[in-house]
């Protein structure tokens, strides 16, 4: 079963994204804690795209497709534009984030810690980031 949502590239669309995820994932096997974490990871990727790849241009859009299978959840995030491959992004050291008073970089650490697998591909201007969460048996 697949569910889809398209959101405009503005940060206020993030709450719309969370509502969609909460409704879509409610019947899944995730407990409240896991639901919160996967929602957070998907939001972090979308927030990065909205802010850094699209500079909050509301005319741009991001498409999210959620697929539920027996052993996993797959979140496919697609956008057009400058590719942001988080697999290439070096995870910053927490101490460095503090000393440089950076407010960014934490999101990517969260995504990498929460999700079991991250895939990225870019083809003819279309970028797809796939986040996979396996169900614990």
């Amino acid at each position, binding site marked *: 079963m697949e569910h889809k949502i398209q959101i405009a590239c*503005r*940060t*206020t669309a*993030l*709450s719309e994204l*969370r509502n969609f995820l909460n409704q879509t994932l409610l019947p899944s096997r995730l407990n*409240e*804690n896991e639901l*919160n*974490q996967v*929602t*957070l990871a998907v*939001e*972090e990727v979308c*927030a990065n795209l*909205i*802010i850094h790849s699209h500079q909050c241009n509301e005319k741009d859009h991001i498409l999210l497709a959620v697929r539920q299978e027996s052993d996993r959840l797959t979140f496919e995030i697609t956008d057009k534009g400058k590719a942001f491959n988080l697999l290439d992004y070096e995870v910053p050291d*927490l101490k460095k*984030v*503090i*000393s440089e*008073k*950076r*407010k*960014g970089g*934490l*999101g990517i*650490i*969260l995504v990498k*810690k*929460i999700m079991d697998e991250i895939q990225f591909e870019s083809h003819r201007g279309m970028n797809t980031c796939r986040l996979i969460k396996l169900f614990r048996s």
Partner: protein
Amino acid sequence: MLSISILEESPHHIIQVKGEIDASNSVQLDESIRSLAEKGAQSILVDGSELEYISSAGLGVFMSYLEEFQEKGIQLKIFSLSPKVFEVFRILGLDQLISILSTKEEAIQES
């Protein structure tokens, strides 16, 4: 949706955060903490009992004050987080860097 209110319970300032903190509104939290620090607050306690969600944008705000507050001797503590919100702090190891207490009483006692 996020609403922030500030209570003064001398010598503490309590920031009550209600709702969800994300990239669209984390600046409100930043401004609240900044304004308290600028007016000389020495003990800032964040009431997280009605905080339903926090993303890295909100976590980053807390982290950005750690060094400065340590240098200036300003205390920043968070209390009454729900288990799911606390877990987000824990995933990043922020529970080791920021003082997070179970109740307001504990936060005040530890001051």
